[in-house]
């Protein structure tokens, strides 16, 4: 079976800057894969290329078995993406946002109502349906963002810093949801700056200056610097890379 994501020498340059530098990576179906790295290390750029939002400068990427440079629109139907900046419409209510995205993904009639109902129940959005997205607090906004990205039941989900600026309890709930999704077979690629979240991923990729500096389970990555914490590994490996 195809991997969920398979990149070879994937590269993206912005002028003189190489944001992603010959990244080769394979993510299996059903994995929760965490992408770590300091600010500007190329996480968002990688995800955007995988979603068909940015064209690679060179290299290739197969997403759910489809070459994203050749058929980005086919890839888009199969993936869910939650951008670093939440993309729900502030001037629409929760229900209107969900109906909109369901419609845009081609759901109609009973099918649409069922799916929206499911995702509302899954993320406990039932009491908020009539509220404008602008009036939601940070944690609820993230949930709405996730709901919009899930309403068409994608097999592969990209979450770019989904819990940035969210309180600890809401973060914990959010990660419960991610594990539930993984249990039902969804592949998740998530970026984060929180080490407790990184520790919950099946595998991690650590990026620095556009390339991978570590890859493996959280324990394996920690072992690379002598079995200390993930946070130590993060700091030490990055310093090593920058020398």
């Amino acid at each position: 079976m195809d991997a969920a994501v398979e990149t070879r020498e994937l590269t993206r340059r912005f002028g003189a800057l190489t944001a992603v530098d010959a990244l080769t990576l394979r993510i299996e179906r059903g994995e929760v894969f965490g992408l770590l790295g300091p600010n500007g290390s190329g996480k968002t750029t990688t995800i955007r290329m995988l979603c068909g939002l940015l064209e690679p400068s060179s290299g290739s990427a197969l997403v759910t078995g489809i070459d994203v440079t050749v058929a980005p629109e086919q890839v888009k139907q199969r993936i869910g993406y939650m951008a670093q900046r939440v993309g729900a419409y502030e001037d629409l209510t929760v229900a209107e946002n969900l109906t909109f995205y369901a419609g845009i993904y081609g759901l109609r009639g009973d099918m649409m109502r069922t799916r929206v109902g499911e995702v509302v129940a899954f993320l406990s959005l039932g009491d908020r349906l009539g509220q404008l997205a602008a009036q939601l607090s940070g944690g609820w906004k993230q949930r709405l963002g996730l709901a919009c990205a899930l309403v068409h039941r994608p097999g592969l989900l990209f979450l770019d810093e989904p819990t940035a600026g969210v309180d600890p309890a809401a973060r914990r709930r959010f990660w419960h949801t991610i594990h539930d999704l993984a249990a039902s077979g969804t592949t998740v690629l998530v970026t984060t700056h929180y080490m407790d979240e990184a520790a919950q991923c099946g595998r991690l990729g650590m990026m620095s200056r556009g390339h991978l500096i570590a890859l493996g389970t959280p324990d394996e990555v920690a072992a690379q610097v002598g079995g200390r914490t993930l946070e130590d590994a993060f700091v030490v490996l990055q310093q090593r890379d920058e020398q």
Partner: protein
Amino acid sequence: MMSRFWPMFRKEFIQMRRDRLTFAMMVGIPVIQLLVFGYAIQTDVRNLPTVVLDQSRTPTSRDLIAAFQNTGNFRVIAHVDGRPELDAAIARGDAQAGIIVPYDYPRDLARGTTATVQVIVDAADPLSSQAALNAAAGVAQARNLSILSRAADRSIPIEARVRPRYNPGLRSPNYIVPGLVGVILTMTLVLITAMAIVRERERGTLEQLIVTPITKTELMLGKITPYVGVGLLQMTAVLILGRFVFDVPITGNILLLYGVSLIFIIASLAFGLLVSTLVRTQQQAIQASFGFMLPNILLSGFMFPRQAMPEIAQWLGLLMPLTYFLKVVRGILLKGVGLEALWQEVLILAAFAVVLIVASVRRFRKTLD
């Protein structure tokens, strides 16, 4: 095919209803434009305040002054006793015209020598002075003819009967208000749609939108279609106000007018959309829209007749949809003409609409760079 158009349309419609700025533009621009252009710009000049220095004070001279007043261009506000007083009134701006009938006027007239009467006009405003000068010359001309024909004992040899057609009262609202339909549509619709895509870009929702499988055409058409209704409503409002406030006639086929307007509305929206794909911020979108408005107002023939323009300006005017639309609106409203006279303009407008939509769909990229 086009299955994602409706969700997009519905979303845009809800947002349009909730956005105060858009709503203010939709209502505010037509009202302001109608007041500014409808009332303030009266190109037909009437009732210039006039001071009279009648030195002869005879029935003959009073008769002449009455003739000047009857043209409707002069309104006598004062009689003065000397030339300095008259000049002062004009210099102060109390009066814009002065009529001086000299002592000799009745005598010269009776003797058959040339009698002179002096008309002084404040020409600082060329438009009003021109009308007054023409009127004054007209008065003299008419009197000359009647006196001469009496003396020669025959009727006047030639009479040119000039009959203004289509706008018999020579009223400027009849010319301005139909044009205003086009100007208001261009201004609001271009401005609103020019913001359509940059607004999503600035708010960060564009990334989430283009990561979905919506096609570019569905996205573009879904974005502009709700505003077609806005355009039709605005147009209806201007027509009703024009009819009942400014007395502008509606002579021709109203359905035809709506049909052509629909094409023009789509072209305007598509132009705004194209702008939206070219600019990066809402600020730039607003500037670009106003930059587009100015030549439209000046060169389309909305305010000044195109025939009077230098050739280059006439050519530039041909690049603007408004130029063709003005011909159509005025043709239908004032002359009551139909498709047989206007089909060329209609075809050109349709071509504008198609080309602009295709261009903006092609310009738009479903990527972030």
